[in-house]
């Protein structure tokens, strides 16, 4: 399986490639990805971001923009995960559309599994917090990462929100500033954690 992006690709290209890599890591979806052939375009409904994904039997190439030969064009508000996307081409290419919907939404683990994966990716980065406590506000379950003692970072959120941020679907400080997460930390740790969170969303470590 090859998932290829051009040098200097914009965030939407890198983020989409990251999602496809997450799908490729799932045995069931990996098989589906290998069989997919066609051209998919994703387009933001609120700004100019767009990406074209060319599936060619396991060789996947992503590029900025909407290709004229796209079989399927999905227009979506990336800022609102609940918003209904507009899809063009699904009637003509129903199987491709179904497969695309699956591989663009890779399954996630529990919030503890996703947090552990993120920590494993980020922990050794320079200036990264040495310890992190994650608290799920649904049931007050906790998970600790890194060194013992008072944690450098505490993050509180619902299981759904914790999965979102630790799987790489959203960025930690955006969620914090938006009130979707609560946290206890200083600016240094928040900043470095944000850097790793952005890198995770854009596919580093995948």
């Amino acid at each position, binding site marked *: 399986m090859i998932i290829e992006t051009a040098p*200097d690709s*914009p*965030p*939407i290209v890198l983020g989409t490639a990251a999602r496809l890599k997450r799908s490729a890591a799932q045995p069931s979806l990996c098989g589906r990805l290998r069989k997919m052939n066609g051209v998919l375009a994703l387009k933001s409904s609120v*700004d*100019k*971001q767009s990406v074209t994904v060319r599936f060619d039997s396991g060789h996947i190439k992503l590029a*900025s*923009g909407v290709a004229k030969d796209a079989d399927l064009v999905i227009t979506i508000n990336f800022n609102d995960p609940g918003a209904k996307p507009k899809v063009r081409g699904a009637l003509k290419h129903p199987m491709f559309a179904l497969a695309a919907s699956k591989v663009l939404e890779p399954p996630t683990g529990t919030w503890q599994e996703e947090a552990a994966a993120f920590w494993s990716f980020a922990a050794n980065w320079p*200036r990264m917090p040495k310890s992190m406590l994650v608290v799920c506000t649904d049931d007050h379950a906790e998970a600790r990462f890194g060194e013992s003692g008072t944690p450098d970072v505490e993050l509180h959120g619902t299981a759904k929100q914790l999965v979102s941020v630790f799987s790489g679907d959203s960025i930690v*400080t955006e969620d914090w500033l938006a009130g979707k997460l609560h946290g206890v930390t*200083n*600016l*240094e*740790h*928040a*900043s*470095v954690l*944000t*850097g790793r969170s*952005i890198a995770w969303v854009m596919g580093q470590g995948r």
Partner: protein
Amino acid sequence: MNLDDSISIVRTEGAVPDGPLIGKYLSRDKFERSLPLGPALADFAFAYDLAGTPQLGWWADWRQPFLGDIHQRPDLDTLTLIRPGVASCIVDFVGVDGTPLPVCPRSVLRSVVERLATNGFTAKAACEVEGMAFTESYAEAKAKGFKDLTPLGVAHPLAYLTHDSYRMRPLLDEVMRRLDLMGISWEAWSAEAAPGQFEINLPATDPVSAADATVRVRNVCREVAVDLGMSVTFMAKPTDSYGSGMHIHHSLLRDASPAFYDATSPDGRTKLMRNWIGGLIATMPAAHSFLTPTINSFRRMVGFAAAPLVVSWGEDNKSTALRVISRSEKLSRVEHRLGAGDLNPYLGLAAILSGGIVGIEQAIEPPDELRALAWGLPDRFPYLPTTITGAADALDRDKAFADVMGPVMVEHWVNTRRWEWMMYHTTGGDPEAESVTDWELERYFELM
């Protein structure tokens, strides 16, 4: 100047890395009591972008984990009257213990000048200030999205037209009057090639004073525009016409004598000058990021439109990145032509001097002079990076350059350029756009 009895207010001002001046209006009493450290402000002033979004993702020791203070340490040698009763003083940004902030552009330039001095040289430099003026006020321009504005002067692309400059007199005569009042020397101004475009030439002086004068000239232009109900921008490419650059002329002195000219050499150049050019060429991809700082700066890099595209130098060649002049001791200098109109002159000068210092410390011989037009060249020529991230990557790779420029400044700059790229793509910029976008106009027009 001294604070004579007529002064009741002092405006402190210093440039942040992106270029804008920040500071405070202080009562005379508060200003005097604040010395020598100067007034305090939040260190966060160095940690948000031009849209006011906090820049997150990295950290450095100069920052404080709970939004602490930094100070604006006045350089009293720069005190000058800006209008009756009001003086301006340029500052260096320092920590609460008085240590220069390693990301303070003026302190970075000072440090590079000191490094040059340890090699036995001083520098003289002069910046050409290019900007564009429009008859709409800033509020009117903003209401139009900074598009389809009416250029001050003649709306066709011819340079040096005196009847064009005559129409620019209301703005530029007043700018020169205020510069005279402030004691800022200027040599000339003229209409330039783009509609509404003007250029102001400043005399050569030491690099820190040259940068001080440049930021003040830009600020005076903006303030006069406000007072006259016009608008001025130093964006590199605010319209589809020619862009604005900042050519930086410079030369070295040893014991106060010109060090670039050798009358006995066939080409008129000393070994020092050759090594200086060699260093500027070797580090140009790295320096490019400081000289071409914004998303908009790169739109100026168009062939056959005055901006250089390849790493190159040539004797009296205005298409190469370095125009070298070696025909007499008096004129001997390098004109660095890569800079965009929106560059921070402290960082631009520091980047140029850093490159030259690398050249003399490593005795780098330059490649062959380009004896051709430096536009429309085939791929075998060394083209400069064409994107803000490409330039940041080149800067990130050049450790010798960073050693002179200051590794903390370089790391911060690389991170902020990547941030700027991310903001462009994720907050409304158009990655497919081939000309200036609404995003750029909103972000840069008033601040650059």
